[in-house]
């Protein structure tokens, strides 16, 4: 540990610092700063340094102020059990403390891991191109809109999105659309699915993109994706489909329903519940290869003719193309993608499909039980659900949620008399207790 009162993460002894200053030819470090006096800072931040032990204790105390609730929460951020092997391997310093792979010859490990991640997304979506991560589902959706703007720029300025959409996702999309001068417009839904007839009436020349989700924000499997895809295709609009890495294991393959782009959350694999941290999927058809935002890893050969991997098609990117780049994204979620890939590998296709099917079964079973309670109807929508579903309650939903919180459970309030409940492998063991608590407070 450094003997000075400075940073513990610089190794300089006083003698070394002195030798270095002498080599440079200055008396002290101060002399190296070229900051005019009138803008120099000579105040204090008022941040007291602590030892690592003190900070661990402090943060532990702070985090302990979060109540210990069993969460039946989803709506885009899902908790599944993450096998230990994911932590242990992704935490290897060679992965965690590495930078973007600008020198591929000494970055083959991460490049291959990202290539494999891309490949898994290709398998899950059926689309031939998947990038190696966006920030999350919402920003991926925003990027899809800017892609639609670029590739359908003559067509119009309207992006159609489902009426039932997570508000935060809509806002993020709107912020991306702001710069592209696109207008976001909701299309009607019927019983938790897209109202395809209404959508058919709406799709026209001004529409550059149609977005649908399956499962929807309320957990409903969208039953007429093919028809939506056809509508978009007929209207020369991009069909963008939102999903998540677990649901994709069993739901219709996006390629088979005509999806041009798939966005969504891959963090359902690899990341535990993390206060909203995510991993954005971005996959698309070959047609848009050179319009993809974010990083792509490709296979190539090295000078010895051996297979090797490298970041590729970088001319799409901001560090080369600047204001004509396909996106401004630079730092992405590569390490989370690594974790998702390890998790997928640990499950294998059988485990992944089982997990997804369990998400369908558990949701149906829990809905059925809540539906049996007086004063509750579940699921609200007569659809198949993945993980989550809406519950109509006679009492005000907010009051019920507050009462449930007192009982140790967290659920979503999504309307005055509407709750939403999400069940996964992590909380399924507490479903009985949740039902009992519902019965208590309802």
């Amino acid at each position, binding site marked *: 540990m450094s003997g000075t009162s400075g940073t513990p*993460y*610089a*190794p300089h002894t006083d003698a070394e*610092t002195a030798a270095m200053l002498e*080599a*440079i030819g200055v008396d002290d470090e101060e002399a*190296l700063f*070229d*900051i*005019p006096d009138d803008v120099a800072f000579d105040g204090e*931040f008022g941040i007291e*340094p*602590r030892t690592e032990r003190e*900070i661990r204790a402090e943060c532990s105390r*702070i*985090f302990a102020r979060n109540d210990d*609730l069993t969460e039946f*929460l989803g709506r885009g951020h899902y908790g599944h059990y993450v096998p230990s092997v994911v932590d242990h*391997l992704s935490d290897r*310093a*060679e992965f*965690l*403390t*590495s930078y*973007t792979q600008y*020198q591929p*010859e*000494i*970055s083959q*490990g991460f490049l291959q*891991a*990202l290539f494999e991640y891309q*490949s898994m997304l290709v*398998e899950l979506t059926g689309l031939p191109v998947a990038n190696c991560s966006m920030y999350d589902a919402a*920003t991926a959706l925003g990027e899809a809109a*800017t892609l639609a703007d670029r590739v359908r720029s003559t067509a119009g300025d309207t992006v159609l999105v489902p009426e039932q959409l997570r508000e935060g996702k809509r806002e*993020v999309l709107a*912020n991306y659309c*702001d*710069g592209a001068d696109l207008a976001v417009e909701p299309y009607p839904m019927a019983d938790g699915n897209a109202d395809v007839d209404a959508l058919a009436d709406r799709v026209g020349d001004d529409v550059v993109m149609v977005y649908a989700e399956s499962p929807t924000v309320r957990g409903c499997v969208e039953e007429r994706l093919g028809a939506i895809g056809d509508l978009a295709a007929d209207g020369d609009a991009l069909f963008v489909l939102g999903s998540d890495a677990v649901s994709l294991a069993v*739901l219709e393959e996006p390629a088979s329903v005509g999806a041009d782009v798939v966005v969504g959350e891959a963090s359902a694999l690899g990341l535990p519940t993390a*206060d*909203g941290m995510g991993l954005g999927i971005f996959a698309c058809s070959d047609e848009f290869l050179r319009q993809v935002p974010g990083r792509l890893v490709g*296979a190539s050969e090295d000078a010895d003719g051996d297979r*090797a991997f490298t970041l*590729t098609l970088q001319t799409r990117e901001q*560090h080369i*193309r600047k204001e004509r780049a396909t996106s*401004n*994204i630079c730092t992405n*979620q590569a*390490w*989370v993608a690594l974790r998702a890939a390890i998790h997928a*590998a640990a499950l294998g*296709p*059988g485990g*992944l*499909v089982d997990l997804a099917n369990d998400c369908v079964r558990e949701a149906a079973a829990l809905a059925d039980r809540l539906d049996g309670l007086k004063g509750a109807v579940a699921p609200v929508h007569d659809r198949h659900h993945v993980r989550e579903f809406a519950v109509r309650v006679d009492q005000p939903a907010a009051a019920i*949620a507050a009462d449930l*919180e007192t009982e140790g459970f967290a659920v979503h309030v999504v309307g005055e008399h509407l709750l939403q409940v999400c069940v996964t492998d992590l909380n399924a063991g507490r479903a009985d207790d949740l039902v009992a608590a519902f019965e208590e407070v309802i």
Partner: protein
Amino acid sequence: VREPLLSEKGEATVDVGADSPLPDDLTRDELTLPAPSEPEIARHYTRLSQMNWAIDAGPYPLGSCTMKYNPKFTEDVAADPNAAVHPDRSERSTQGNLELRYRLQEFLAEIGGMDAVTLQPPAGAAGELTGILVAKAYHEHRGDDRSEVVIPASAHGTNFATAATAGYDVVELPSGDDGRVDVEALEAAVGDDTAALMLTNPNTVGLFERDITEIAEIVHDAGGLLYYDGANLNALLGRGRPGDMGFDVMHYNVHKTFATPHGGGGPGAGPVGVVDELAEFLPAPQVRENEGANGYERFEPERTIGKVHGFAGNWLVLIKAYAYIARLGDAGLADAAAKAVLNANYLAERIDLDVPHGPFHHEFAATAGERDAADVAKRMLDFGVHPPTTKWPEMVPEAMLTEPTEIEGKSSLDDLAEAFDLAYADTDEALDAAPNRTAASRIDQVSAARNPRLSWRALDGE
């Protein structure tokens, strides 16, 4: 040493329809993925990791990337299971996370000299976009229609792309002869259409923009806002604050300045700080202290631009940034900057390559002169170090933009200097043939782009 692809180790195909509780027409037919056992997974990723450079392997002097050591304890802090909550939980039940967020907002505001900070942007570029959208909302709220963002030619590519993403036209400002902003050129470029000037300070060759006060006046007088790209903040810690220099909005790169691990590309976090006048436009929700039973509450700034991330940003990264700042405190942060600047100056002194511009701070752009900077870099790989950023910024010919950060000691810098000099002085043949002591020899980037093979399915039959 080639490690097979996971798919080459054995795939399995599962018949999906068969066992699914969903009707056939709503499911895919089958799913094919690798099906390795846990020992195979452990070996696969262990071997892959062994083919990867990292800050824990050695110096990583990528200019403008600020690759510093990631203290191990911050991982343990972030792994606290109590911090793992869902973002839709009630305020009342997540006081801990709200408190830490509030504390970090306060730290960052203090360090940047800003009045309000949002933690939501999930990376630096996302922070830029947030900042520019905030600036845009500010102008729009004032009924002030502005269409341009001015950016020095030497700026990070993200600045340009961000301005474009936000819907602005980019006005590129050529560098002055001294490598800094040419104040006259700036005056000419700035006007009624100027929404903002985006500036990095010190700039991308490590030079402090000495005329920053004048620059700020020019921009402000024209009704524009001054945006600070936080990429080089590590050079200023404790010695200068963007807020004190007239910047109105800035982002922080926590994986640079605050030592959160870069994870081979991300996740980062790009908090944005603003002066009071812009605070009402920040993304929602923000966190503040309150007087009630709960110590902390979320709130929506009055004229918020809405959200820039689906939830609340890269939480695990933010925790690590908090822990790092708390570990160093005032003195540690100032010392980090001092040592970063010392190291850059010492290394520049030690190498044979010319450094055209100075006095520089935490990084410098050496020039490879007649040599190809990219080739010199490849040869440096053979000497066991990671080379600097090459061929950028363009104002320095065959640039080797070098930022050792504060974490290297004298002997490490001496080794790095030796690698520089050996590579720089090597024969053309050696440079062409480099690298040849690495897991892979020189990789053909052109054919990778010409014939993109982006998944193992694309390699089938090869």
